Each structure stands twice: as C-alpha cells, then as structure tokens.
C-alpha cells in the first residue's frame, strides 16, 4: 500500500512545484492567485493521502482538509477584492507596475 501513498505524495509535490513556479513567474495578480491555488491543491492531495493511509481512524485529518478548502475560498475572495480596488485606483493589476507597493 505504500506504493499508492508514494504516488499521491509525488503528485502533490509536483503540483506544489508547478504552483510555486506560477506564483513566482506570472506578472498578473489573478495568475499569481492561480499559482497559489495549485500549491494548496498539492497540500490537499498530501493531506488526504496522509489521512487515508496513515491515520484513517482520526477525522482531524479530514477536518484539516476542510480548513484548507476554506483558506482557498478566503484567498479568492480577498484577492479579488484587492484586485478590484487596485484596478480602480491604478488601472492594472500587473506586478511590474506595482513598484509603489515597495516600502
């Protein structure tokens, strides 16, 4: 059974890697959020695999998956709120044009 666990963990790791690449390389706020979503998806895969193969008797694992899904939704809501405000104020949500956010 360790085989399935390893397969799931490798998938989670690769998803996380793609997400890190996307979050760092994209210039648009919405695209960066998509990268973050992929990182969280990788985390979700790992969490479910850990719950299923290591601790199926403890439902705190599934609980944590629900919390991560909440985080995904919250990230979307706040991100889009910031994006709208930024777009209204500056006319773009490009990172290259957001140098004024540097301290």
């Amino acid at each position, binding site marked *: *059974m360790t085989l399935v666990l390893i397969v799931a963990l490798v998938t989670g790791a690769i998803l996380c890697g793609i997400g890190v690449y996307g979050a760092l390389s994209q210039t648009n706020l919405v695209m960066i959020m998509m990268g973050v979503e992929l990182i969280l998806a990788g985390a979700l*895969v790992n969490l479910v695999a850990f719950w299923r193969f290591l601790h199926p008797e403890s439902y705190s694992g599934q609980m944590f*998956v629900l919390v991560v899904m909440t985080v995904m939704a919250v990230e979307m809501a706040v991100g889009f709120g910031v994006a709208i405000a930024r777009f209204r104020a500056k006319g773009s949500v490009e990172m290259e044009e957001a140098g004024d956010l540097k301290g």
Partner: protein
Amino acid sequence: MYAQAFFVAVFGLAAIGFGVVVFRTSSMVRSALALLFSQTAVGCMFLAMQTEFLGVLQIMMMATEMSIMAIFMVMFMMDPGGMGGMDMTHQKRFSIGAGVVAAGVAIVVAFWADWGPVTAEAPDAAMQTRALGMELLGRSMLIFETAGITILTAMIAATAVAIPVQTTANSADKEDTE
C-alpha cells in the same frame, strides 16, 4: 491495491497535465478552466483514495470558484483571448528553479521518510460522512466555527475593499455607483 495505485496515478497525471496547461496557454479562459480541471482531477484522486465526501466537495466547490476566476481573468488581463502573443511572465529562470527545488525536496522526503505501517482498509463511505460530521460538531467545533467566521470576515473585508471610494470632490457625479 494496484488498481487503486493505477487510478490515483492516472488522475494525478491529469491534475499535473492540466496544471502545466494553466501556465502554458495564453488564453486566459483556457488557463482558468485548465486550473478547474486540474482541481477536478485532484477531487477524483480523493475519490480514488476512498475519501468520497471530500472528493465530491472538492469537485463541487472548484467548479464555481474557478469559473469566477475565469471572469476576473477576462476583466483584468490586457490580452484575455491570448491572440496578441503578449509575454505575461517575469524572472522565469528563478521561478523554474524555485519550482523544481520545491517539488524535488518534497519528492525526496516522500521517498526517504519512514512512513511506518500503512492502512489497507478505508472506513466505509457512509461511516466516513457520519464520523466527519461528528468531528465537525464535536471536538473540532471551535475550529469549524472559526473557519466560518473567517469566511464571513473575508466576505465583508473583500466587499469593503472593492466598493468604490467616494471622495467629496466627485461624489456629485458618481451617483450611478449606488
């Protein structure tokens, strides 16, 4: 066991494939929907790992979430159709390095760590739903309620941030924002 490994691997490959498409395509709607199908494949992985409730929930939530992502992409990107061939990336080499390092470290750990005994039998799906409900409204109730309050706070905060600011100078000619 091999059947399960096969299905987890197939859906995993689908998730990775769509995940790559997200950053490879220049059409923004395609990008958002590729992310959606990547997340759906992740949900199918949950189903393959006999975690029925979470899998169905993931598949349900992501459909709406990523479709909303799609319309925001179209609103905020300079070139949503991807017909203009604009390059929307920066610091590519560093990003690829960071991505490879992140994935590589996690994979190495996955192979090296001693995971101990692995359980073969998953609880029955109906039992899982019941036990998760008991967990949510029992021991983890406080966490669950906190998550709910967090969503409420985020909704209010996002709305407050997104509502246009009314300055006294031009509030007279901005009545249509009402």
